[in-house]
């Protein structure tokens, strides 16, 4: 990452932390709701490199972290 990008990332992290984004147990409600019936948007088939959405170990960790 360039220095500028790093600065921005740190700035955003601090900003969101102070704004209260992390302090709530949002994960459980959000993950549950996202999985619900109203999936308005889906990846178009064949539009990207074809990788689509996969559960790599890294994504799994994200969901695990979201489950408070």
């Amino acid at each position, binding site marked *: 990452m360039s220095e500028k990008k790093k600065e921005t990332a740190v*700035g955003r992290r601090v900003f969101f932390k*102070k704004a*209260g984004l992390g*302090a709530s147990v949002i994960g459980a*409600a959000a993950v549950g*709701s996202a999985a619900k019936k109203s999936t*308005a948007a889906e990846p178009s088939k064949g539009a990207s490199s074809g990788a689509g959405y996969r559960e790599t170990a890294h994504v799994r960790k994200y969901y695990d972290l*979201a489950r408070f």
Partner: protein
Amino acid sequence: MSGVGSEYHNIAEEDALRAQWYGLLAGLLAAPPTPEMLKKIGAIEGDETALGQAVNRLAAAARGTTADALEDEFQILFIGVGGGVLTPYGSYYLSGFTYEKPLAKLRIDMLRLGITRADDVYEPEDHIASLCEILSGLITGKYGGSADLAKQRAFFDVHVSPWAGLFFKDLEAASGADFYRPVGSVGRLFMELEGQAFTMAA
């Protein structure tokens, strides 16, 4: 970087959180909550920030109502007979009518991003819930390819920022809004934060 995970960028903690908040808003605005979802909302705990307090009010409202009651409230606010109290579509806020140029522009951008409307959804794509869901997916990289901040910001600036704050303000003040009043507050505050944070990356 190459290899199996190369489409995935490490999701920074704050971005994972942003995706969750967008996911929460999408879930709240797409349909009235199921009893299960209502229970989860009731368990949310916010901190002393404005956003935290708003989400606390939302959680308290969730604990004080039922899924049945919310079906009615949702119906009155968003559906109605011949239209709900509110019309949560970008085209409506930006042009006065649904199915207008903002929707056409959105569809072009969705095409470019490799996103389509799901088969079982019949509302136009510029519904606030749909836009929140798209942003959540752009953050997590759900639609394949890069989910970088520039792309997110471009989408936000064109399709969300011009009207979402107004909609959430309307929701806060809508007659018939009870549980959905703090939904409006959460949405308004979160959108303000997103807008401010994006300008930091300028």
